[in-house]
């Protein structure tokens, strides 16, 4: 009886317009691609049909290559992300809240703001080489920027009324920073951290495309050189899935941290 009820809600969830139309939309893209692959005269090595891509996926999974490459990428992006985001949140919060820290840090933040992290790649390679540290540094830089900009903006937007209330209640400046400014800026921190996931991922793939012995970026680049377009597409899809997974982790932890907020949630 209970399982019946549960399958009923599952069915209702699957039949929700957002899920239904969204799935159809994705299937439409796959269908269009399939039509393109089946066009007469198309080389299946260059434009593999979906079944061939699925076969390549299974092959990569069986050989263990996919797992090795995915975990190499994941490790890099997580290390780079943690370093970049922590540094950015600390410095951004200081710059946005304490006047003199702002005087020191704002010019630096505003100077790096328009520079894409990928522009640092040649410099990082020349200075540090093409090893693992370089790849992580590029990810750190890519994650740092959106996090620091958002953290600072969040601290600038703290409502004066909460600050006044805390001060009249006897809170020290440091306590106002820690217990009023930081919590009320958390929605901004989360926004920066979510953007950081996508920019970090972008930098990861770029860094791995250049020179890497492993990783999803290496995998798609390597497969492309051998005209294994099917493997390249598998790599691209896995990159997409991994990125979506990390974004979910970021947004879910963000939601847990801002459960108190009555701001409308994204669907």
């Amino acid at each position, binding site marked *: 009886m209970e399982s019946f009820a549960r399958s009923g809600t599952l069915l209702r969830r699957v039949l929700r317009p957002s899920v239904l139309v969204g799935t159809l939309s994705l299937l439409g893209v796959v269908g269009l691609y399939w039509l393109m692959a089946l066009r007469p005269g198309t080389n299946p090595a260059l434009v593999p049909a979906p079944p061939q891509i699925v076969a390549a996926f299974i092959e990569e999974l069986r050989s263990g290559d996919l797992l090795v490459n995915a975990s190499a990428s994941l490790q890099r992006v997580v290390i780079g992300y943690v370093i970049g985001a922590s540094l950015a949140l600390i410095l951004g919060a200081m710059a946005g809240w304490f006047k003199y820290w702002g005087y020191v840090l704002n010019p630096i933040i505003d100077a790096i703001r328009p520079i894409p992290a990928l522009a640092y790649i040649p410099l990082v390679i020349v200075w540090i080489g093409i090893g693992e540290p370089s790849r992580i540094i590029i990810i750190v830089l890519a994650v740092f920027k959106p996090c620091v900009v958002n953290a600072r903006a969040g601290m600038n937007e703290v409502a004066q009324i*909460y600050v006044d209330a805390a001060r009249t209640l006897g809170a020290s400046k440091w306590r106002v920073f820690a217990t009023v400014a930081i919590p*009320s800026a958390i929605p901004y921190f989360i926004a920066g951290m979510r953007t950081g996931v996508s920019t970090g991922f972008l930098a990861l793939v770029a860094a791995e495309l250049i020179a890497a012995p492993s990783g999803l970026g290496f995998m798609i680049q390597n497969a492309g050189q051998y005209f294994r377009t099917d493997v390249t597409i598998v790599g691209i899809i896995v990159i997409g899935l991994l990125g979506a997974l990390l974004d979910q982790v970021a947004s879910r932890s963000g939601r847990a941290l801002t459960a108190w907020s*009555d701001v409308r949630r994204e669907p």
Partner: protein
Amino acid sequence: MSAALRPVSAPPAKLGVRGLTHRFAIGDSSTPLTVLRDVDLDIARGQFVCIIGESGCGKSTLLRMMAGLLTPTQGHVLHDGVPVRGINHALGFVFQQDAVFPWLTVARNVEYGPKSRGVPKAERERLVAHWCASVGLSDFRNAYPKQLSGGMRKRVDLARAYANSPDVLLMDEPFAALDVQTKGIMQEAVLALWESTQKTVVFVSHDLDEAVFLSDVVVVLASRPGRVHSIVQNPLARPRNEAIRVSDAFAAAKRELWSALQAARQLPAENSG
């Protein structure tokens, strides 16, 4: 008129204001606007004082200066006869806007002041229990503000201010955003708190009924620039309950206050400077 009513010697007032003048620049105008001019005021210990005046008369500015949230251009604020500089942590402030921290539960909001002062945990828990009960929120101690109505959030605000054991409470039109019925209930809650704690309250309002229902003394401000027009003693007996609102005495007191407010309004605006 205000000078005549001020006690000449005697112990210092709980809260005093001396020669308070405040100007600020508006836009890029070269002549600053005088918001308050030469305000002298004494608030006696234990009194419930309302400050009324038409909007823009500087009543909120005056209250913020008493708290030290704003520094006057001239003049100073005395607390027990001692001049105060900067924010006076011995006073509690209840704002017009919703100032309850949305990221803290009701209990954590109420203990915020005591925690800021380093009150030990056991004592803080006692304060939370006591003040949540005093405002009727014992069952909501673990709720977040977003789960509460506007009136309940104001109760949290009051409990938070009282839990910090302030010497004087300053309230800046705290119930202006509430509906009439909730407002009436909150006014009774404030009176109950005042009667049980005997703490001095300075309450800014633009609502005559509110001022008559709550106050011992009403300070009527004239505007442009803001200055004390008159100080009206409220003859209404205590303790007061909801029924007093429809009594003849209430109507008479309200009429007297209304006349004072009208007279203040008819005072010509004076040049800034």
